[in-house]
């Protein structure tokens, strides 16, 4: 008796039945409703307009946790964890809504607040530099790479990191 080493499972396509019914339909005759797609695209675009407001709330949270880093240095480890979690929520999304600089800065903050980072006063200042840069991006609505202003922000943040590192 030969041992079976590969199994192929060909399962009945219940999803197709649920979405298209039981009547046979040619593959090239199947599509989503154009009108629904337009509505969904419009709804997504409308919601995306709220991105700066949403991210402003997260920047406020970062600033609040930063203040606590200053006020209660003995609890910095927990504060850094909070900063790390908020930065995680922000990174990888700015680009989706036209603000890649937010992704860049939150990515940097995420890396910078990882478990191996020292919770020194200097590093707390570097965190503040990240938050300040993000705030400028949103306040000035700096979309895309931000041109000269975007370059200045990046250069300024790099300078702050070098100064305190």
């Amino acid at each position, binding site marked *: 008796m*030969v*041992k*079976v*080493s*590969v*199994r*192929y*499972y*060909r*399962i*009945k*396509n*219940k*999803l*197709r039945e*649920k*979405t*298209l019914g039981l009547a046979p*339909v040619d*593959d090239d*005759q*199947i*599509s*989503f*409703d154009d009108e*629904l*797609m337009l*509505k*969904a*695209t419009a*709804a*997504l675009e409308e*919601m*995306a307009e*709220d*991105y700066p407001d*949403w991210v402003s709330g997260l920047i406020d949270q970062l600033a609040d946790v930063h203040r606590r880093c200053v006020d209660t240095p003995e609890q910095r480890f927990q504060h850094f964890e909070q900063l790390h*979690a908020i930065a*995680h*929520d922000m*990174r*990888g*999304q700015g*680009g*989706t*809504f036209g603000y890649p600089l937010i*992704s860049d800065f939150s990515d940097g903050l995420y890396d910078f607040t990882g478990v191996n980072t020292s919770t020194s006063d200097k590093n707390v200042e570097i965190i503040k530099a990240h938050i300040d840069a993000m705030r400028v991006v949103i306040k000035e609505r700096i979309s895309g790479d931000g041109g000269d202003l975007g370059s200045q922000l990046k250069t300024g943040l790099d300078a702050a990191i070098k100064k305190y590192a």
Partner: protein
Amino acid sequence: MSNIDLSRVSVLVVEDSQFIRSLIVNSLRVMGVGSMQSVDDGAQAIDFIKLVDNDPMKAGMMSIDIIISDWEMSPVDGMMLLRWIRRHKDSPDRFIPFMMLTGYSEPKRVEDARTMGVNEFMSKPFTVNALADKLFAIINKPRQFVHTASYFGPDRRRRPVPIEGPDRRKLTYDSPEVEVVNG
């Protein structure tokens, strides 16, 4: 033309960013998805999947047809969730279609997700058209599942590709080591 009607479809959305989650859920709702549940991370997703299996009335969902999950989450990320669904003995449906969302789409990541048995991979920024394309593939172009010693998931060959040079494959569908299960 036949339009896809999603009103009888149930989707579980797993995404830790409240903002992104609301974007996905709202887009699905406008596209006509009938039933949705959203959770914050893979651990909550596993709890919900078990609840639907054990007590669908309490879960408010009779079944889960499709899972759309972010990759980067804590404590249980999208890959861990996918692994649980495809390989864990407690998984109630190891064949459930799984769409992975991520902000990072390096080839290595795509390969890792394929190896874990993902059906579709969608990189952010996500658009309604991209979401529709992936749903279309899941609904209309499902792949057979393959179970070997090292892999369980959708067939990674989406379509027959002509082989250049000698065919080194040792097994065919007719080999005694191969079993085809129709269900």
